């Protein structure tokens, strides 16, 4: 792999994780706010709120998998 190609792969891997992280963050902003609102009224919503808030994190895992494939398979 020549240096330019290696650089492009590294940039691609970075974008895969970075953009997925931004997307997850956008999704989590409303869910997190709602979870905190519900918990402020009733502490019993802590478990459910936490679970709902981390669901968009799965997108970041997909991004990470793509990044790892880019870095170690290509």
């Amino acid at each position: 792999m020549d240096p330019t190609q290696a650089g492009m792969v590294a940039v691609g891997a970075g974008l895969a994780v970075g953009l997925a992280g931004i997307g997850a963050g956008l999704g989590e902003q409303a869910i997190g706010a709602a979870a905190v609102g519900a918990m402020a009224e009733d502490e019993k919503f802590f478990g459910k709120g936490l679970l709902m808030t981390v669901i968009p994190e799965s997108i970041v895992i997909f991004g990470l998998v793509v990044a790892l494939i880019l870095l170690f398979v290509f």
Partner: protein
Amino acid sequence: MGASDGAKYAYIVARVRAMKGKLIPRDMYPKFLNMEIPEITRFIGESEYKNDVDELGKKYRGTDLFEHALNQNLALTYRKLIDVSQNEANFLITEYLRSFDIWNIKTVLRGKFSGASEEEILEDVISAGQLRYRDLTEIVKIGTIEGVIAAFAKTPYYPALEGYKGVLADVENSLDKLYYSNLIKAASASGNKLFLKFLRTEIDLKNLKILFRMKRAGMERDEIIKMLIPGGMELKENDLGRLSAMSFSEFVRALEEFSYWKAISDISAELGSLIHIETRLDKYGLVYASSISYYYPLSILPVLDYILSKKIEVDNLRIIVRGKETNLPEDIIKAHLVM
């Protein structure tokens, strides 16, 4: 609605949904009807009203305690909504809750008009709007209606009050109109179409109640027109003019063309009874608020739905206890409940 639009309402909506879950379930009201007042007070004292009952228990007893606890809880709950909301939601909630300022001004004026004591007037004050309880406590000390009106000179409600010429109904009517016209302006300024839709439906229901009352009392068209509030959703100004001119039976038949008819159609045989009609219209408002709040979950509507549901809960509890206190038959109390 963009993601950020949704996000700005997520916190307050989740909070009011959780608060709505703590309201007294509908199936409790028939049970209350079978309980005695001390039992109901005990139940309420162990519910969301606990702090209010405990706090006021030193000062009041029996139904007075009940009444004060309900009023205080309502005021604190609404004030909490203002405190925990931000930006557009905060602005719209604050504007909407100005209805309690109107209520309080009317209460003070009516109290002064009928010569009620300061204590009696303050019993019915619900300080959920922008007028603070301590300010109202000072205003109540003023002896004359003119003095009371002058005390409101620096408030936005003064334009409706300054025209007082000895007839309280005119001032009350002007206050209602001022409230709704300001609210429509606020809704239009914020660009929140859902709020405007809710508001205009509320105006329609209010106009229908006025029309039923006035028609039953046999008032003339011009008198009725003066009382009606412009800006409704289905009942436009020409409809209001047309309905005002009809006889009671024609008026009832003409209502069939509006969607509100389905709220009262099954009690058309009892349309002479204002209690049934008003309860049905209130219920229509409640069901409407609840259903549109599910269509638009991340908007101001769930908050308005909660505000309405809480108000109806307090009204229902008050009706049950006051009805039981005066030994009203169960079916009459039940007819007044919005369930």
